[in-house]
């Protein structure tokens, strides 16, 4: 009887699995999601110790966390909640925006569906929630239902895309190339912040800044054109109207949608044309010469320059096929010139092509940088340096100095699992039990041995810390100073997910 008196107090807090998602990294914290308790666990690394804070996502026990994502600027973390059961009809689907430190109440946005995908604008202002098409928990689902959330306020806009029946496949922000920079395109005399929704054989354009604006939908159904990438060129003196370019993996054309104001003065519309580029374009960029606006495409073993006004083009041949291209500013003897860098996964060269006066220099050839063991992955560190992963080799390529430095390792590195802190390149690959750093000024590599193998690698720029997680259900991390990675200044913490478990 006495045992029952003291024991009959409710559910066992230690029953059930320890369901945890993540972690995801913000600029200052690592964030785990405790699905069993609907809590976020914020882990903040200090110089000497770790701070662990638990925050409830929602006070309503009838809700559950669907997913967690950090914002692009790392200052917040987004959490989508939905009802635990379809019987809870009065429970709303909501998006919660927590500060990266978890020390403030969240901003809550009402969204009308349990979206399973999110796209965030590079200017850090907005997020678009949509359905990825990979299955849904809802009995009946509107595949083209989306929510546009303003991350700078408390506004959220729920709408259905006015397309032609094609199922939404991806979301792009074509006018925003530079991260963190607010970008708007003037269309018909009005500034617009466009988002492009790509569906099967069609595209729908929405002005995120103007809820009253119309949606512009374009279909390519009859042309066999399936858009997979977008790029927006703002209007200027060379070509007045802004233009949206769409690339397809099939066909030899790039679609060009010239954006113009609507005749009634409200909204906008498009004029459609297809530009032949001489092959299936693997990638494209826009480049303004002194007199000609160019569409630059990488296809097969050439880089094609197409005048967006006349659709006339010329090409520069390469020694191997390329499928990626990007532009950088190249310092040539104190003068900055625009340069195209082209490459392809599996290729053995980086091709660089100076674009100054390209139209007047017949026979100009691209300069090549050899990657002996082939390119598996390429990461742009900054304007002048790229990191190439190639099996058990890493290549640090200095485009300004025209220098390739191979770094040989015992096991393959993941070039995408890296971070740049000043001139220090930091690497931590899953499965390895060491962190490596390369001083990019001296190209001197060093490695620091960890006590356990890496599960995931995270760089927290606000704290200038690297946090490495290890495989352990209770949470185990190692904190390393990014500017001075050494065993004497690093520390390890175990049992993070059990913090405060006896007090619950």
């Amino acid at each position, binding site marked *: 009887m006495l045992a029952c008196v003291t024991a009959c107090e409710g559910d066992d807090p230690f029953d059930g*699995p*320890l369901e945890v998602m993540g972690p995801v990294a913000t600029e200052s914290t690592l964030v785990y999601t405790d699905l069993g308790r609907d809590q976020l666990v914020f882990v903040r690394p200090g110089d000497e110790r770790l701070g662990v804070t638990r925050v409830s996502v929602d006070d309503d026990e009838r809700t559950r966390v669907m997913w967690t994502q950090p914002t692009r600027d790392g200052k917040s973390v987004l959490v989508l909640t939905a009802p635990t059961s379809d019987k809870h009809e009065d429970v709303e689907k909501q998006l919660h925006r927590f500060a990266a430190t978890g020390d403030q109440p969240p901003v809550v946005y009402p969204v009308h569906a349990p979206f399973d995908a999110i796209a965030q604008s590079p200017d850090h202002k907005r997020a678009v929630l949509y359905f990825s098409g990979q299955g849904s928990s809802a009995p009946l689902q509107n595949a083209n239902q989306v929510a546009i959330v303003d991350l700078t306020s408390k506004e959220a806009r729920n709408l259905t895309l006015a397309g032609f029946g094609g199922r939404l496949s991806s979301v792009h922000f074509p006018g925003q190339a530079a991260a963190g920079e607010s970008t708007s395109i003037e269309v018909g005399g009005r500034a617009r912040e466009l988002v492009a929704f790509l569906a099967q054989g069609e595209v729908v354009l929405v002005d995120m800044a103007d809820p009253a604006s119309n949606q512009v939908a374009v279909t390519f159904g009859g042309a066999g054109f399936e858009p997979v990438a977008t790029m927006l060129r703002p209007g200027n003196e060379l070509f007045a109207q802004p233009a949206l370019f769409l690339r397809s993996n099939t066909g030899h054309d790039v679609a060009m949608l010239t954006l113009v104001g609507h005749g009634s003065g409200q909204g906008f519309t498009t004029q459609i044309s297809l530009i032949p580029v001489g092959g299936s374009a693997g990638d494209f960029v826009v480049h303004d010469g002194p007199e000609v606006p160019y569409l630059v495409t990488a296809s097969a073993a050439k880089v094609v320059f197409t005048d967006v006004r006349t659709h006339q083009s010329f090409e520069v041949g390469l020694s191997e096929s390329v499928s990626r291209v990007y532009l950088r500013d190249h310092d040539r003897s104190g003068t900055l010139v625009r340069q195209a860098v082209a490459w392809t996964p599996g290729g053995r060269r980086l091709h660089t092509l100076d674009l100054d006066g390209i139209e007047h220099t017949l026979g100009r050839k691209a300069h090549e940088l050899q990657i002996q063991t082939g390119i598996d992955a390429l990461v742009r560190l900054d304007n002048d340096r790229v990191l190439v992963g190639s099996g058990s080799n890493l290549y640090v390529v200095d485009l300004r100095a025209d220098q390739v430095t191979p770094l040989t390792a015992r096991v393959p590195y993941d070039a995408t699992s890296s971070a740049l802190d000043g001139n220090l390149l930091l690497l931590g690959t899953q499965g390895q039990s060491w962190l490596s750093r390369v001083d990019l000024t001296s190209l001197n590599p060093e490695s620091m041995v960890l*006590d356990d193998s890496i599960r995931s690698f995270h760089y927290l720029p606000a704290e200038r810390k690297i946090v490495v997680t290890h495989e352990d259900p*209770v949470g185990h991390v*190692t904190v390393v100073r990014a500017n001075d990675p050494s065993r004497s200044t690093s*520390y390890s913490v*175990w049992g993070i997910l059990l913090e*405060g*478990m*006896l007090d619950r």
Partner: protein
Amino acid sequence: MLASYLSSLLCLGPAADLEPDEPVAAPAEAEAATEPSGEPSWSPPREEPSAPSTPSSSDDVAQPFEPTPAHEEARPAAPAAPAAAVVGQTRVRPDRPIRYRIDLQIDGGTHNIGHRSFEAYSLGRNLPGLSAGVRVDFRLAESRVFLGAGLAYRRYASSRSIYELTIDQELLVQEPLVFLRASFAAFEGLDVYLEPGGGPTIVDVETFSSRSAGQRVVTGVFNGLAGVALYLPKAWLPNKGASRVTGGVDLGLGYGWRAPIAVAPTPSTDDEPLRTSSVRFGDLALRGFIWRAGLFLRFM
């Protein structure tokens, strides 16, 4: 007679009695009671004339029988205690008053922990344990009250796998205790007692996942117990009032309190590790009702 004397040596010590006012039979009176013939406790053998021996054909000369001289005088009357009387063929020891008691006890029981933090180490709220100890108490004047103290060693252990067998947890509590005891002998065979006590408590907690982590904390414990001790009365023992040893069962119920323990186990590491620590799991509060049942052997 010799046989009866030897058998009396096998009987236990002097008699004891819960009623010290009852007169103890004086050995002389006992002797008188046990020897209705009025003969002293020991007397030389009776002299009996023997028949004259038949002269042998040898040259031996018939020797007249001479009575065996008494080689011992009759013993004087023994002092009142602790001499035993002989009744018939059995030696009987006089009753002894109980002035002190020494108990050796082992018991088992459980500690019902009321705090929910304990659920991390047990599926239920009960922490089972064993205990062994010794206690001594003395009669207070001529009353039925006995006051004393004792020492005991108590051990509790519990374990549990939490979060669907992801994490294993173990708890071990060891306590060397000192306690006081106040008993009231309601009647022979039943004591009612109060037993406050305390001492250090050594708590070991361990957590196992991909690696192990352990922590030892020494804090304090305070117990308050009340209960009954049932034991064999002298009337049921072979030596009756002279019995010096008995046994019984001890049933106790009470409450135990320990200071909360801040659990932050230290993970195991290899040689020359990074500076490694764990987080604070929270406070483990081990307090609640105790019950026990034990057996004891009493020397009085």
